[in-house]
């Protein structure tokens, strides 16, 4: 697509990034509409309003595009989580803020959420591995909670994994039920669930009350 006159000075890099983002959004929307297995490159380019060549300038295959979609979503999610967390003080507040930002992102981008949280599990080995890695990338943030508790090193090694798994399962269920937009309703329960093992039930309740 030719840029309108007067905008030819847009850098190639800018246009490329914009195109890439459009293709990713199109894949997410097509995946939500028809399920990943049924999506074709033709579907994606039609939705994105680009030429087939443009798709292949950016990605080598549907799967390549899918993996890029996952990477994009994780990067964006982490960015929002960290941004929200750094605006407040105290680990319990940071966790609550980060979790809130995550749920907000899911509710604002239901197609992306469906693609990365539901469809990823059935989109092949590489996608499933990416999913595992993305789950892992949230664990260090949770693990910081161990510093805030006297019994930090006595907590089970797999605690963060289990908490992240629980959060994902609840979010996954809501998406499967077509209720991604309502996922922020889970925030109080999830903050309680995530904080209690580290700081105890009462402190967790207090943090929830401050939401």
């Amino acid at each position, binding site marked *: 697509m030719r840029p309108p006159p007067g905008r030819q000075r847009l850098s190639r890099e800018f246009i490329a990034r914009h195109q890439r983002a459009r293709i990713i959004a199109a894949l997410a929307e097509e995946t939500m509409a028809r399920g990943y297995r049924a999506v074709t490159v033709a579907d994606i380019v039609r939705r994105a309003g680009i030429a087939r060549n443009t798709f292949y300038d950016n990605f080598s295959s549907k799967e390549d595009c899918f993996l890029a979609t996952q990477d994009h979503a994780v990067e964006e999610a982490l960015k929002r989580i960290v941004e929200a967390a750094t605006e407040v003080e105290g680990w319990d507040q940071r966790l609550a803020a980060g979790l809130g930002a995550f749920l907000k992102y899911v509710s604002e981008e239901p197609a992306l959420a469906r693609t990365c949280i539901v469809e990823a599990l059935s989109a092949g080995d590489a996608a499933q591995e990416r999913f595992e890695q993305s789950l892992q990338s949230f664990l260090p943030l949770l693990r910081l909670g161990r510093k805030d508790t006297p019994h930090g090193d006595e907590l089970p090694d*797999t605690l963060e994994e289990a908490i992240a*798994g629980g959060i*994902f*399962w609840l979010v996954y269920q809501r998406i499967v039920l077509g209720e991604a937009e309502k996922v922020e309703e889970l925030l109080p*329960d999830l903050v309680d669930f995530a904080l*209690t*093992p580290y700081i105890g039930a009462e402190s967790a309740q207090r943090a929830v009350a401050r939401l």
Partner: protein
Amino acid sequence: MVPDPSTDAPAEYPPELSRLPPGRHGLPRDFVIHNQRERLIAGLAESVAEKGYGATTIADITRHAAVSRRTFYEHFDGKDECFVAAFDAVTEQLRERIDGAYEAEDEWTVAVRAGIEAMLGFLASEPNLARLAMVEALVAGPVVVKRYDAAVETFLPYLRAGREGRPKAVLAHLSDSTEEALVGGMVSLVSRRIVAGQTDELEALLPDLVEFTLAPYVGSDEAARIARG
């Protein structure tokens, strides 16, 4: 009809029943001998273990099951339906093991520990079935995924039973989604090990899983104590 000593099929059985699939399917031998449907399920499990569900064809299934293609279609419309049957057979076995262990204990905390132990033991001893139910199931189409989700939900009552008789302060702290989050976390830990082919590490998860699931009901100290059993 001469019995084939390598398969233990009785003399009166027709020859095709003596060609049993080897035991990697994990289903009891009697079960398989007596029922073509079960032989097909076993055949599917064999093929999935060998090449994954995506690459499995009906020809693969019937070859492993030593039944005809026509027989396959007498029982199933296609491979997806056969997979659903296999999935249900595995989850049924798993549920029986867990239930048996759980019901054998009087104390709820100990019962939960026993149930989790039985689950991990089953999955560790049957890596192919574990993979079928928890990994391959996710690529076998929306019907199976729904079954998978429903199977996970069947664990909720075991934990929810822990609410009985708890002090108000504890109950006030539990939410509608507590059991779902706990089971979700547990399933996540288990399935990640299975995906990574680390079924030998499953049983080592027992203390962590027990502590994680019991803590909201009995507190972390008591949960840790039971976990270390």
